[in-house]
């Protein structure tokens, strides 16, 4: 599996857990409700959506479930299934909250935990409902049959019954999302100033639409420009595919744009660092890499563990000494760690895959690996796909696989969830929620009933968890009750706290940090003999627990701090006289209320 595939699945998992954690951000961060049973709604969403798309239960086979609506014409589709799953989770969240929300916060947490355990046990014990302790499989994720995208192949549009050529349409969808996100990020960079010719790139990337931006027109802010640019790019790529079948060219174009945007972002971030800070970051990253070398290369387990721990200790000790003794190091330590992480990831992504083939003197496979990782939007290898023969590199089989489609879809949903949460946080409803979190008596004195608002918060938060559950069902293609253990709530809680309990951006950051850690330790664990895998996996959870404690103690507001949602956004044009004086309000991040 190429490194780009690892990164893609990483982003998909971040999206799913990001949406799940958004439910907790709303419940705990914004409203102050500690819900230890959050995973229960995740479970409800997953199983509901699956039951909607499964074909009716065949009594003769070994699986049993209560109903399968897969054959019903309009209802038995993923769209309806996911919608119903979301709504049902929200309703059940409200029902659970009705009797329990008046309890004290710790009683509430434990009671809802009990409810989620009841759900889990129900699935486990009642074999007639969802195949009991065995996995519930046998459904296919949406549009999977169209993948990997071939040059022929048709996809039918739901509800309209029209058939369209699969490859241009679906790849167009993927391109729209990827291009649009990249364009929005680029717009943000342009606004903040950058040493690189970002404006030119932005102009080119948005196909000139950025010049058409007018405050009152349809292209008022950067989001709409991004969306429009994404759609134009999608159409362009689709045409290229439909007319000329140029998968590789299209893939290279899209991937190149994203790399350019990434370079622009990083250039600005690290343009602020001086050379010595850069070099220390590189040194730290390299040191970390060297510390991990015993794990793949040593044979005896004891040597692996002891060697790695010693070297890691040396690296951490060196970092600590530097922080103590050098002032410039201590001031810039966060940026230095960021630079080290970037260097480490760059080596892992670009260098390590080509070290193997280069070491045995094969230039072709090395270049092939490099190309795979650069053109990440296409999957290489496999039996099915379009074949190319390129100079020096050799045979390439190129395809667009299902993971990329999931990536586009889930990232779109995650952005949607983020906007939903931002809207909620900035609305009057959000203000009442924050007031309920801080002091219920004040809310009551103003004439609003905190009970009603808490119920609403539970409903929306549980609906988000149900939506994430449906996405999970799409991703894993098989559900077991073991997945929905209280551990998932703990992970969601950890994610929420890493970024900051009431910080919407922070939740995404937390999910990224968590899954980066998981992927990294999974890769490390693969170097240990299988008998010890359980122990290594357990150790990674210990480390996570310790990190959680450190975050709770030293950074109770998370890595991104408290977010201030009470001030108007930069784009709001309400010019009241009071606002003209005083300190400028910042829409995200910033000072305490």
């Amino acid at each position, binding site marked *: 599996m190429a490194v780009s595939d690892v990164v893609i699945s990483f982003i998909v998992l971040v999206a799913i857990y990001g949406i799940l954690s958004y439910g907790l951000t709303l419940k705990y961060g914004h409203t102050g409700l500690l819900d230890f049973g959050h995973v229960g709604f995740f479970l409800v969403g997953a199983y509901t959506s699956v039951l909607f798309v499964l074909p009716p239960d065949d009594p003769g086979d070994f699986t049993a479930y209560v109903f399968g609506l897969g054959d019903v014409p309009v209802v038995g589709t993923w769209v309806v299934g996911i919608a119903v799953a979301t709504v049902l989770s929200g309703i059940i969240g409200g029902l659970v909250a009705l009797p329990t929300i008046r309890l*004290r916060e710790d009683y509430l947490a434990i*009671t809802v935990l009990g409810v989620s355990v009841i759900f889990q046990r129900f699935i486990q014990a009642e074999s007639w409902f969802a195949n009991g302790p065995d996995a519930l499989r046998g459904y296919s994720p949406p549009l999977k049959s169209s993948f990997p995208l071939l040059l022929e192949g048709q996809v039918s549009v739901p509800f309209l019954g029209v058939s369209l050529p699969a490859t241009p349409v679906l790849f167009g969808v993927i391109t729209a999302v990827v291009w649009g996100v990249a364009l929005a990020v680029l717009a943000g960079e342009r606004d903040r100033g950058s040493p690189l010719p970002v404006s030119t790139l932005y102009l080119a990337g948005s196909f000139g639409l950025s010049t058409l931006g007018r405050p009152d027109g349809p292209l008022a802010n950067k989001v709409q420009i991004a969306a429009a640019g994404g759609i134009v790019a999608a159409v362009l790529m689709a045409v290229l595919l439909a007319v000329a079948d140029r998968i590789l060219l299209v893939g290279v174009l899209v991937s190149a744009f994203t790399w350019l945007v990434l370079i622009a972002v990083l250039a600005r971030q690290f343009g602020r660092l001086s050379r010595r800070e850069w070099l220390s970051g590189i040194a730290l990253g390299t040191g970390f890499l060297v510390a991990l070398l015993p794990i793949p290369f040593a044979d005896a387990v004891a040597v692996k563990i002891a060697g790695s721990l010693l070297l890691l200790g040396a690296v951490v000790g060196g970092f600590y000494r530097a922080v103590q003794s050098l002032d410039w190091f201590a001031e810039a330590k966060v940026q230095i760690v960021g630079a080290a992480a970037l260097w480490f990831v760059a080596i892992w992504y670009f260098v390590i895959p080509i070290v193997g083939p280069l070491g045995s003197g094969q230039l072709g496979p090395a270049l092939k690996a490099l190309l795979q990782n650069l053109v990440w939007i296409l999957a290489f290898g496999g039996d099915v796909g379009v074949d190319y023969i390129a100079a020096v590199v050799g045979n390439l089989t190129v395809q667009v696989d299902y993971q990329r489609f999931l990536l586009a879809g889930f990232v779109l949903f995650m952005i949607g969830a983020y906007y939903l949460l931002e809207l909620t946080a900035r609305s009057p409803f959000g203000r009442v929620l924050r007031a309920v979190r801080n002091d219920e008596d004040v809310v009551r004195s103003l004439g609003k009933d905190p009970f009603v608002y808490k119920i609403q918060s539970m409903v929306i938060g549980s609906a988000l968890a149900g939506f994430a559950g449906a996405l999970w069902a799409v991703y894993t293609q098989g559900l077991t009750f073991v997945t929905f253990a209280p551990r998932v709530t*703990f992970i969601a809680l950890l994610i929420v706290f890493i970024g900051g309990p009431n910080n919407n951006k922070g939740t995404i950051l937390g999910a990224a940090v968590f899954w980066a850690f998981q992927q990294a330790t999974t890769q490390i664990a693969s170097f240990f003999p299988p008998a010890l895998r*359980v122990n290594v996996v357990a150790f990674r*959870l*210990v480390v996570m627990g310790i990190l959680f404690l450190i975050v709770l*103690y030293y950074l109770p507001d998370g890595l991104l701090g408290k977010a201030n949602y009470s001030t108007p956004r930069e784009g709001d044009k309400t010019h009241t006289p009071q606002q003209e004086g005083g300190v400028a309000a910042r829409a995200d991040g910033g000072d305490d209320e």
Partner: protein
Amino acid sequence: MAPSAGLLNAILTGLVTGSIIALGAIGLSLVYDIAEVPNFAHGDLLTLGAYAALLVNKPQSVPLFDLFATGPRAVGPTGAGLLFAASAAGVLGSVYHLGGVDAIRGGWWAVDVSPTVGTATHVGLAVSVGALIVAGLPSYPAALLFAVVVLGAVVPLTESVVFRKFREKDVELAMMLIVSLAMAFIIRFSIQTVFGGDIRFYEVDTSIQAAGSSVNFTFAKLIDLLVSSNGVVVNVLDTRGTENLQLFTLGYGWLEVVGILAVAALVAGVGYLRRRDTAGVVGPRLAAGLGGVTVLLVGGALFASGGTVPSETLYETRLRTSPLRLGIILIALGLMGFLHYLLQATTLGKAMRATSDNRELAMIRGINTRRVMMVVWILAGMFAAVAGVLLGFLFSNITINLGFFLLLPMFAGVILGGISVYGAILGSYVVGLAMEVGIFAIPGLSATYRVPVAFVVLLLVLLIKPEGIVGD
């Protein structure tokens, strides 16, 4: 025709389950009440105790420690030395938590003693406990003792290293809950890092010598209660494979039954009235209960005469139990009695009750609340160790989820009864009974629903009385 197990059997099983939950819930409620930490990690403390006992019971099955084992259940001199050192360190560590080196010198005793006497006593205690454990290796009681002393020293560390830091930051209750959740994961997965994912079980010598013959205390005994027109007959059978061997039969005529019950009620009433206005260790309800039970037992023994199994019965039921399960109930009751004595009759217990009522006021009165808190954690650790080791033996498999399965019933018991020690005991028995009787009474409910039943009961009680049955 043999009677079938009915409601009474479910009640008895519920009492056994309730006893184990109570042992855990006592520690949980002590910590919840006095240290104000809703300790989500308490279930994993039970697991820790269960696994710690494996070091003594089956040394070779423990990774890293098996280097010192000379056989599946024996250790060489180094291993024995390590265990001795660990036990002694456990005892001294527990004392150290009570106030540092000064406590080892006897500073925490209620009477003034010279440092030499204090240190000598503590060291002597540590040495004798260590010797007992090493001598008793690899028997089950030695393993139990080892788990108790190790946890007594390790559990307060969670307080001094983690919880105290957060309490000093004056965080809210929800945050303490989250912190304890993180601790739970750290403890549970640290155990798994060392021990891996295999299922373990204890090796226990299950036959004891009693009355000249060896009795296996894990074998189930069947006790039939047969009520007929002549009286009550208690028929005790031993299960041996497919057929049941009759051990002995006791018959009571109606006159004897009524007489015993009347005298028991009378003694209970008298005990209640006489102790009603006192505040001693044996309060009114305890006096009534103890008096009634004693009369029942004495009367039952006195008037026991050989009986015959009647052919027609008005009511019959069967109890299926084993000396092990009855022993668990007795051990639990004994430990609760010890705790009750501690709380009511000693100065330390009075300090604990005062701190639980109002910490600031207790501090004003000169009570060392930090020491009280440490005592509470030590007790919580010890009780958790006993509960974990008993649980591991009762279900004869030890996995890392052992304690977590019991965590929810424990919380249910604590919250149901109100967050105090006596409330927790009452609540745990209610939960245990609810779990077993619920599974029995509701047809078609499989055994995986035991914990959900406990939760439904908790939910119902909280809806009616959110402070719990006994709570304030």
